[in-house]
């Protein structure tokens, strides 16, 4: 195996990793303990493995680890603390949008990428940004209302 070293910013910290050129970012993250990034389909359809790379939500199962070199990567471990979850996590919890929870970290990150870009998204923007995360438990209804709730909060707070 042709081992190589890459470096990127992970959740705000500069990190170096030895990688196999053929491995995907998902594998790299999980074997380094970032297991909030879930394995779902390995084909870029379900979004359970979503991470944010340079501000955009991507499937870490589709991205080769080396593609992350020099980039800024955020995983679910980079959001929220015990007892004080991120506002998106908070909204999902309050709305009852977390059932099995397997898709939830990916949903949170897709939503974060959206809200960072568009603090008060319209319905079509929500549909577009969230169409890469499959959920089989909720029918998306409560996830939808959580997105609306965060948006409404931004609107009220005149945030960003």
């Amino acid at each position, binding site marked *: 195996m*042709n081992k*190589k070293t890459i470096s990127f910013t992970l959740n705000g910290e500069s990190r170096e990793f030895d990688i196999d*050129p*053929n491995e995907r970012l998902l594998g790299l993250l999980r074997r380094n303990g970032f297991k909030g990034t879930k394995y779902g389909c*390995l*084909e*870029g*359809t379900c*979004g359970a493995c*979503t991470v944010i*790379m340079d501000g*955009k*939500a*991507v*499937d870490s199962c*589709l*991205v*080769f680890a*080396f*593609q992350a*070199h*020099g980039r800024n990567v955020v995983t679910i471990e980079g959001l929220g603390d015990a007892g004080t979850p991120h506002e998106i996590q908070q909204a999902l919890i309050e709305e009852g949008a977390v059932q099995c929870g397997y898709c939830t970290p990916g949903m949170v990150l*897709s939503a974060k990428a959206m809200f960072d870009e568009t603090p008060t998204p319209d319905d079509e923007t929500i549909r*577009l*940004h*969230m*169409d*890469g995360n499959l959920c089989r438990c909720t029918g998306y209804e409560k996830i939808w209302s959580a997105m609306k709730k965060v948006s409404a909060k931004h609107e009220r707070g005149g945030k960003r």
Partner: protein
Amino acid sequence: MKINDFFLPTKISEAYARLKKEGNSAWLMAGGTSTAFVKSTSPKTAIDLTRLPLRGITRKSDHFRIGACATVCDLMEYKAEGWVLDRVARRFVNQHVRNISTLGGNISRVFYWSDFPVALRALEGTLTMRTSKESKVKISEAFHNMLAHRGAFKDVILEYIDVPRLTKGMGFGYSKETRTSEGFSTATVAVFVKVDKGLISDVRIAAGSVFPFPMRFLKMEEALTGEKAEVGCIRKIDFKDLDRYALTPREGMTLDYCKHLLKVKISDGIAQAVAEATGGSR
């Protein structure tokens, strides 16, 4: 597809030199999403093109110049008068894939469910390639058929895609059929029309998903040219022409229905393009 080494060039000349050096084991890569669909047994050296200065979209007088590494998301979010590729981008797989897939990647590796190749066959335009020197290829030539396409993209780095800026009297129709928003397409049609003094002066109709490679319908285009630019012009098309094409029905469709669906999609695309060209809203 197995990657056993990678190279992260920041200059086009570096990328090209590496491409020459690696020969058949080079794998030009931008977003990398297509690697999931490519079957190859011999290990490849990935040449990551995303660090090259090839990402922007610029508006020129009669066209847009798109860097080959512009992502589908870039195309979706770009806003300018006469820009239509946002409509194609919106129907592209899902947000995560739109965020990393690039226009260059999508048109240099054509899959049967093709999105941009279909749209570009209808819109026409020019590809700027880097070989030992810079060369320009018309889309109609590069996409003439599968063989021409393979030749056009062999041992080159695609730099820019120039597509026409739609002005008054031009219209674009795009219609993609899928079961779910991120599902594979069962029929994709793109239509470009230009209307002059109420008559169709130029028209290009392309379809994908029902073929292994996106096709143009030259006979239909001929039938429409010179006709009045109104929805009724569709009656001038002899859809029996479709019998000449070897359709590949997807997802359990019968050939009969596939043909019917394509006919409806072509009609929808023409209607949309004509409406736009004759002043209907975009």
